[in-house]
């Protein structure tokens, strides 16, 4: 279903967003937060915006939602210039920002209901959707609690669910899974997939959680230092690093002789104590793995695997930052 939706969007679908030469320089700053960014976001896809902290991702999505004025360049939303029609953007786009709602004295269900009615739902429709969302995210026990008395994750959930009220054509979510517990995080990604697959909604999501993004996103842009480092379908992005499979080796013990063997393999790197990463060409990987296993003491090896390119590798390739070093 995901592939069908993607194929349709890429072949016959219109663009949700067309961004051209977008530059944003904040007042008092010399370095641009966004520098000459051009990208197309087809309607009906899940589009991931990736990049290191401070890369300019939030600046980009705030401009897409009309909340921030670009310094130069153009953003077209379904063909219309956002800069001149910024007041109409909320009719199409629902936005969840990184900064949480300051509605401490509101109950969870009030936030959803008010948002839904302001977006044009009848009070009954809004109540119905709010109840459905609360049930879907197993949050009915939170319905009547005040946001000010909730944990950060629960408050974030309220803000995220408010984004879903009244089913806008485009959802823009800036790091929606931060602070959420694993169950709700998983549910959220599943819900985004459902929204896209069922209703064809365009979903733009900023996230640092690459393995989770990889399971739902059709396309991605990688922003680094305010510029587009890479953009395309996940397949296209991964093909840029297709020649780089890797062997991951977990060691129970790292005796001098084991370290000696591993150190002699070109490119082998001790990512952290007990974890060695060895890059390999896809065709050479089996033979190289055999050689490594034969060279090491059997009792020293805990586990091993051959890993094909992931978003982590794409991220590493285009930003030079290795997320695997800190992965569990």
């Amino acid at each position, binding site marked *: 279903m995901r592939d069908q939706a993607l194929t349709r969007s890429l072949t016959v679908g*219109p663009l949700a967003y067309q961004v051209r030469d977008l530059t944003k320089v904040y007042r008092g700053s010399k370095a641009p937060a966004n520098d000459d960014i051009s990208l197309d976001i087809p309607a009906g896809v899940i589009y991931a915006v990736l990049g290191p902290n401070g890369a300019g991702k939030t600046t980009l999505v705030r401009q897409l939602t009309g909340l921030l004025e670009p310094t130069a360049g153009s953003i077209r939303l379904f063909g219309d210039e956002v800069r001149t029609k910024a007041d109409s953007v909320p009719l199409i786009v629902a936005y969840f920002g990184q900064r949480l709602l300051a509605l401490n004295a509101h109950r969870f269900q009030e936030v959803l209901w008010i948002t839904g009615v*302001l977006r044009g739902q009848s009070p009954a429709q809004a109540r119905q959707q709010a109840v459905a969302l609360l049930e879907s995210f197993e949050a009915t026990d939170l319905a009547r609690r005040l946001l000010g008395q909730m944990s950060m994750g629960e408050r974030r959930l309220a803000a995220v669910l408010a984004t879903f009220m*009244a089913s806008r054509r485009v959802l823009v979510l800036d790091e929606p899974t931060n602070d959420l517990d694993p169950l709700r995080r998983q549910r959220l990604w599943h819900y985004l997939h459902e929204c896209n697959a069922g209703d064809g909604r365009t979903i733009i999501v900023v996230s640092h959680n690459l393995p989770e993004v990889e399971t739902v996103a059709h396309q991605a842009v990688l922003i680094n230092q305010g510029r587009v480092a890479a953009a395309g379908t996940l397949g296209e992005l991964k093909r840029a690093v297709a020649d780089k499979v890797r062997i991951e080796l977990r060691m129970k013990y790292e005796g001098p002789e084991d370290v000696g063997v591993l150190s002699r393999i070109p490119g082998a790197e001790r990512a952290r104590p007990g974890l060695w990463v060895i890059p390999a060409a896809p065709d050479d990987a089996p033979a190289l793995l055999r050689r490594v296993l034969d060279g090491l003491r059997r009792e020293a090896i805990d586990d091993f695997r051959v890993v094909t390119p992931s978003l982590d590798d794409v991220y590493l390739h285009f930003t030079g930052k290795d997320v695997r070093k800190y992965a569990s």
Partner: protein
Amino acid sequence: MLRSSHRSAEPAARDGTAPAISSAPARDRAPGPLAFLLVLFSEMLRMRLDWFWYLIQMSLNPLALLVFVYVLWDDPRAAQFAVTGSLVVTMSTSAMLSLGQQVGWMKETNAYEHYAALPISRKLLVAVIATRGVLLSLPSILTVALIGHVAMNVRITPLGVVILILGAYAMSGLGAFVGFWSKDGRMASMATQVLATIIIFLAPVYIPLEQMPGFLRYTAMAIPTTYVARALRLSAAGGGLSALWPDLTVLVGLALVSLLLVPLRLPWRRS
């Protein structure tokens, strides 16, 4: 033109021209009056936790000044000036000082962006927070008016209430302007307190215009509270529309500027 596909309840075919929204609502935004009431309701909910202290803040200053002026000013008009002056202070506190601080605080805490991302207009938001100020000032206004009526025999007419409400909306533009242009809540708080001193003590709120120093008589004409206080005193003295129309005209003009023109200049979306 940007438009939503939500107008049709029919699930549109997924032909690539527009994503179908199967659970689409019939409209894409709440009608104006409903949106106004909803945002007002939402803003009033903010008072759920600290309404008591808010009322104390709104009431204490005007009540203290009421007693202070009445007791210390040795003039037959003391009662009238004490009551009308305190009512103007109450109105100014809610419409300008609190509103400016509220808007600055909204900016700081992201509530402002929350509304900017929803399909409501700047004008609606300014009208809501001005109305919120008026509503929150009502208990204090009623208290001062009641004390004035019972203890000092100063009668506030229905026209006087209209003048106060009109004055509140006239002042709201100033509060909104300060709040929106302040960097954060702290700066808005300081700026509004400076302004509060100017609009209360550099205008003929507690004393007659003719008793003010010469140059202040001219600068006072640029301060909205001058017109509110003068109209209120005239109405308390039994004056009708024929006597009040010059002040009312100024206040209506300022209210229109506050509610219609000031929002157009507000940085709704940031540069």
